[in-house]
């Protein structure tokens, strides 16, 4: 089928201008969400986390370090998400926070992070810049994440990865 031939090759490069735009769209959505802290999922989730922390004017900030991919290569193998620790979570206890990552597909990383926050008595509102619909495995995006600014079918290359579009 043509669709199947075409789509797995899809590789979506995002520019910094686009990332700023996506963060803007999320800010719009979160403006009335009474967010009292921001938690970024390291590494790449820290970029939108810092942006949204400023845009929403919410200073309390924490980091969750969760690894999923085995390398930074395009189409890199993925394993079960593993937590490697956190920074500053204890300061957010009892608060409603924004839990943010750069991208979600199957949602295992986000789900693992969400469980950690709930166990720490933190109420997370989840958000990502991009949903990769190719990895949803039949689920709806809204079952995985509360807010997202963009959806694609295919692998995403963010500007902070330092890969030139011509390298694809």
């Amino acid at each position, binding site marked *: 089928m043509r669709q199947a*031939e075409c789509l797995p090759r899809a590789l979506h490069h995002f520019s910094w201008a686009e990332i700023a735009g*996506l963060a803007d769209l999320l800010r719009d959505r979160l403006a009335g969400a009474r967010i009292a802290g921001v938690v970024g999922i390291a590494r790449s989730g820290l970029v939108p986390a810092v942006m949204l922390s400023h845009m929403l004017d919410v200073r309390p900030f924490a980091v969750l370090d969760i690894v999923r991919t085995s390398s930074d290569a395009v189409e890199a193998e993925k394993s079960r998400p593993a937590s490697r620790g956190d920074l500053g979570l204890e300061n957010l206890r009892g608060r409603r926070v924004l839990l943010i990552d750069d991208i979600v597909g199957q949602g295992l990383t986000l789900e693992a992070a969400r469980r950690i926050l709930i166990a720490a008595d933190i109420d997370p509102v989840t958000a990502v810049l991009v949903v990769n619909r190719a990895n949803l495995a039949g689920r709806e995006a809204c079952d995985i994440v509360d807010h997202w600014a963009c959806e694609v079918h295919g692998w995403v290359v963010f500007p902070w990865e330092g890969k030139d579009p011509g390298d694809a």
Partner: protein
Amino acid sequence: MREAMRAAKLFRVERAIDPDLGVTRFLSGWQRRTGEEPCFLFTDVAGSRLPLLMNLPTRSALLCEMGLATEAGAIPQLARRLSTPASLVRGETLATRELASLGDLPLLRHQPGDAGKYLTAFVGALACRDTGSTNLGFYRGLVAGEREIILFMDPRTDAHRIVTAGLAETGRIPITLFNGGPLSIYLAAAAKLPPALDSFEAAARLAGRPLALAGGDCPPAPAEAEIVIEGHVTRETRAEGPFGEFKGYYCTPTVSPVIVVDRIAVRDDAYCLGLFCGKRSGLTLMALQNEILLFDHLRRSGFDIETARYPLDAFGEYVAVIESEAPSRAMIAAALDFDPRAKLVVATRPGVDMLKEAIVFPAEVERRPYMRRGQAEGHRLGVLCDRRNDYRWVEL
């Protein structure tokens, strides 16, 4: 369209947005801030339950829908396809949920001076009684009531001829206006095809696969169309316009036929595709079909050309760049003859900057009067950039 959506980056706008200039304001603001025109999915357009897609038909999305993964060789391949018969098959329409009013659709007032909300991304299908084929085209349609549209058809088009001849015989001409479906249909609708070639077949040829159509008494629509409006063109005429045209001015009002809408049906999961005049997505459709038709014509005329381009900076239709290892005056003359809308035709060697070529190397010019609505209005130019001398380039 669904495949193009899958190939796109869809930026979701969930805030409530006003179809009366609100979408325009949002898109213009975004473009000013970022210099980019991503594809937006507006999920909450006031007054409608249908999400609205803007800026979808980019070049890569169009090519992907037609199974072409890269730009390389795309125009020659599409031109070849256009000559290869393809089949139309009967399908079941997915647009089965009826809507009461045009007001239920996320239709936009695009520019402050527009006369009202306009249909811009609906393809009009008319049956040609002379040839038995279906004629497809883009027409601007002013929403004049819950079930009334004032449809402007350029008097130079086949559609205008079909409607005029039909209304002279009967008081009503069935018409179908649809939104969505394979984007090759949008290309075919934008193209000036030979009248005997059924536009749906042209779309199937461009896509390189059979096209499923559905319909009853009215001309058919693609089975997978998102929105299907069936109605009839009447003898009643009313004023429509002004409308902000893609070239950056308001067209003058016209007196055009009224379409009475008999049925509006949408898919259960329908999206509405919008096209903004003058923005990249609309111009891309125009450019791509121009490139296919000019390439096909010049190749058939015996010219050895590599590709033809219609830059979007010139609205995808007023400047044609022909790339060939053997650019010639005859090639330029053939292109000027074929496309009377092209104001500037440049023939140059492949992969070079045409402006630099014309400046640095000897250039020859052919000048002809530019005719607009039967009146001479300035001139058209053909420029031959012929690098006769072999200059040695020394910079790394």
